[in-house]
Structure formats: C-alpha cells, structure tokens
C-alpha cells in the first residue's frame, strides 16, 4: 500500500492523476457533445429524450458515469492539493513579475479556470441532471415516445438571459482550460517527442476551440431561434 501512496503522493504522481482524470474528462466531453447535438435533429426533441433515457439506464453507461463522477471529484481534489503545495513552495512573492514573457495566461490560470468550471458544473448539474435523476421540483411532460421531455426543460432554461450568459462564461473558461490542459496531460505522461508532439499541440488547440463552440451553439441557438 505504501508503494501506491508513495508513488501517487509524489509531485509527479499527483500530476499523473491530474493527467489521467483530465484525459478521461476530455474523452467524455466528445461523447457528451455528440449526444447533445441531437437537440438539433428537428423532431421536437424525440431523439434527444430517448438519448437521455439511454444514458441514464444502459448498465455500461451507468457504470462509466460513476467513474466520471469519481474522476471529476479526484481531478478537483488533487488540483486543490497541488494548489496548496505550489503556494507553499513560494511563501514570499515577487514585487515585479513579467510572466507573460515566458508563459501563456491559460497555463498560469489553470486553478482559476478550473474553479470557474467547477462552479459552472454544479449549476449545470442542478439545472438538468438533478431534475432528471432526482426530480428537483420540475414536472416533466411526456413526449410522443413515452419518455420524459428533458428537451422541453432545456428549451425553457435557455430562454433566460442570465442562464445563457453563465453558460457562455463557463464554456469560455473550459476553452482556456483545455487550451493548456490538453497538451499538458500528454507532457505529464511523458509523451513528448518531435514526431508527434506538434500534432498533439495542434489537436489540443483544435479541441479547445471546437468542443466549447459546439456546446455554446446550443444555448445561443435556442435563446435566439427557439421559443
């Protein structure tokens, strides 16, 4: 047991956990985006509603979802521990710093960005996941297929200006977090080579732009074009 705690408790071990959970969350976001895009299928939400039922009842997906909750909490917990450790490493700060000359803003702001994403996530889960799984006060209608109409709730939520703005802020934070986080996860794993690192960096930037934009398209489109 001490071998595991020694390894995962070291500075590199903590980063390993950040990297692995981060990559798992990156993988999840793609699935989440593809599934959610069924909102645009133009069938009044039938496809989206049956997708929601599938995601919450299919055993394999259910099992993976527990791994997902665990990954989010582990990622956040270890981020907090590293933040404390890293602050302790420099008790006296500099009077003058020109960090923009040697590193990107996103890379220096991962804790801030992560905290924003965490707050956004709580709000996001409360809006939909909590309502759908535990019934947080919203009475679901039943669609033509006999499924609870989550689609309708999504449309209702995104009529509020403040909800849309909050989502856009959350997704912007996500974009910057991924901008650095994607390639950083591979570097931590020790995967850095002239042959493939440029490809990883390119893919990371592409991912950090396309995925948050894809998510943002939903609240924005619904807010302006669907009543």
């Amino acid at each position, binding site marked *: 047991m001490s*071998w595991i705690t020694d*390894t995962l408790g*070291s*500075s*590199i071990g*903590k*980063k*390993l956990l950040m990297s692995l959970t981060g990559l798992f969350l990156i993988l999840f976001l793609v699935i989440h985006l593809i599934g959610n895009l069924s909102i645009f299928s133009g069938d009044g939400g039938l496809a989206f509603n049956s997708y929601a039922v599938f995601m919450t009842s299919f055993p394999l997906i259910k099992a993976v979802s527990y791994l997902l909750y665990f990954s989010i909490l582990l990622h956040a917990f270890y981020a907090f521990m*590293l933040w404390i*450790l*890293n602050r*302790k*490493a*420099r*008790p*006296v*700060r*500099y*009077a*003058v*710093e*020109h*960090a923009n*000359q*040697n*590193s*990107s803003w996103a*890379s*220096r702001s*991962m804790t801030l960005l992560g905290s924003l994403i965490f707050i956004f996530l709580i709000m996001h889960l409360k809006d939909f996941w909590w309502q759908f799984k535990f019934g947080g006060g919203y009475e679901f209608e039943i669609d033509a297929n006999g499924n609870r109409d989550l689609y309708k709730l999504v449309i209702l939520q995104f009529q509020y200006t403040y909800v849309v703005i909050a989502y856009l802020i959350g997704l912007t934070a996500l974009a910057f977090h991924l901008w*650095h986080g994607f*390639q*950083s996860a591979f*570097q*931590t*794993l*020790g*995967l*850095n*080579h002239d042959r493939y*690192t440029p490809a990883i960096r390119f893919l990371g930037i592409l991912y950090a732009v396309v995925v948050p934009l894809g998510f943002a398209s939903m609240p924005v489109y619904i807010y302006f074009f669907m009543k």
Partner: protein
Amino acid sequence: MEKERTYTLKIWRQPNANMKGAFKTYKVEDISPGTSFLEMLDILNDQLSENGEDPVHFDHDCREGICGMCSLFINGRPHGPDEEITVCQLHMRVFKDGAKITIEPWRANAFPVIKDLVVDRSAFDRIVQAGGFISVNTGAAVDANAIPIQKVNAELAMDAAACIGCGACVAVCKNASAMLFTAAKVSQLALLPQGDIERKERAMKMVAQMDAEGFGACTNTGACSAECPKGIDLSVIARMNREYFTAKVTT
C-alpha cells in the same frame, strides 16, 4: 562612444536569513552602455563602501556565463531581459537611460535568502547527491571510444548536461518547481550507457529528494525552459516522468 547613463535601482536588502528584508532605492550615474550588469553593481558597491554603507551582497563567480552563480531576478525575470543569458552576460545597453530597475533574490521556500540577493541553493546539491551520479571504481581512465554511443543520444545528453544549476527555472516557475533542473540531471545520465545501471534508483531518489526540499509541482507552463540560460528543453521533464513511472512500476 555612447552617452553614459543613469539608473534608479530598487534592490532587496535583508541583513540575514532571520531578519525581515525590504526594498531600498539607489541611484547610479555615469554608467557606460558596455558595462555588464554585475559591473554596474560593483560600481554601486564602491559608492556604498566609500559612504561607509554595507555593500549589496550578490552571488557571482566566473562572469562568463558558465558557473551559474549569479542569481538575480531583474525587472520580473530571472537573469533579466534578453534570452539565454546569465546576469553576467547582461549588459546595461539593454536598459534605457533613466530606467528604474528592480532587483530581487530568487524566491522559493527551498532557496532561503542568506543575505540581500544571495540565496542558499544547496537544495540542488542534495538532489544531485541523491542520485545524480554514476558509481564507478577509480583506476585508469577508460578509452573514451571504448563504449559506443548513438550520435543522437550523445547530443541529447549533452543538451541536458548544459544545465549549470543556476536555479532560474525555480525562480521563474509560478510553483517554484525544480522539475527542469532535476529532469536535466536525470536525463543526462539516463541517455548514456554509463548511467543505465542506476537509472531506476536515480529517478526515484532524485524525485523524492526534490519533493522533500519543498519545491512545487509542475504545471507545464514552460516558463522554466523559456528563461533557462542554457535553453534546456521541456522534453527533459517528459523524460524524467517516463523514467519515474517506469522505475516505479518495475522495481
């Protein structure tokens, strides 16, 4: 002959490790643009001595960019503005006439201030002592060409060995992390056949010592590599991580 310049210096003064420090402002005049930064400080110290004041203490030794002693955080960057240089290679022509220059010591929990701008970097020595060596019996030196080494590995090992242990990586890192230093020392030996025998033990012991010294963890911001006077590449950190993981799962 270029016109001589005047500067306002804001320098961290601290009598010893236990006493509180503070910034003090000084003025230097008639500095020619060709003066090196350390020579400018020498001129200031001559002034201070003549006035009976305690001169500003700072580390320096070879003054040709290879010893790694000079350790000043100048205007928000280790070794000041300009790329891939140490402070002794920094010249006053970089600073405009009348400029205000802030000089601070390296700031890290693992690098306590001894006096003024001098910090204790023996934490680096202890990291190297933990495993940054190869164990060979003494005797007649082996022929340098007796052990075949791939050209590419020899080059990469040499790139890592360029590290002079100045501590700029720690100084600039937002986490005061010593990953670039430790990774350079792990890399230079891991790439060579002579270092292969102890490579697993080395990676584990050096990382453990690095953590014990109170350095932070790595956020992969790349600031260390950007400010390294020897341009050590970030890929050495990836190599150290690989060495560490491999060592941990195979021993």
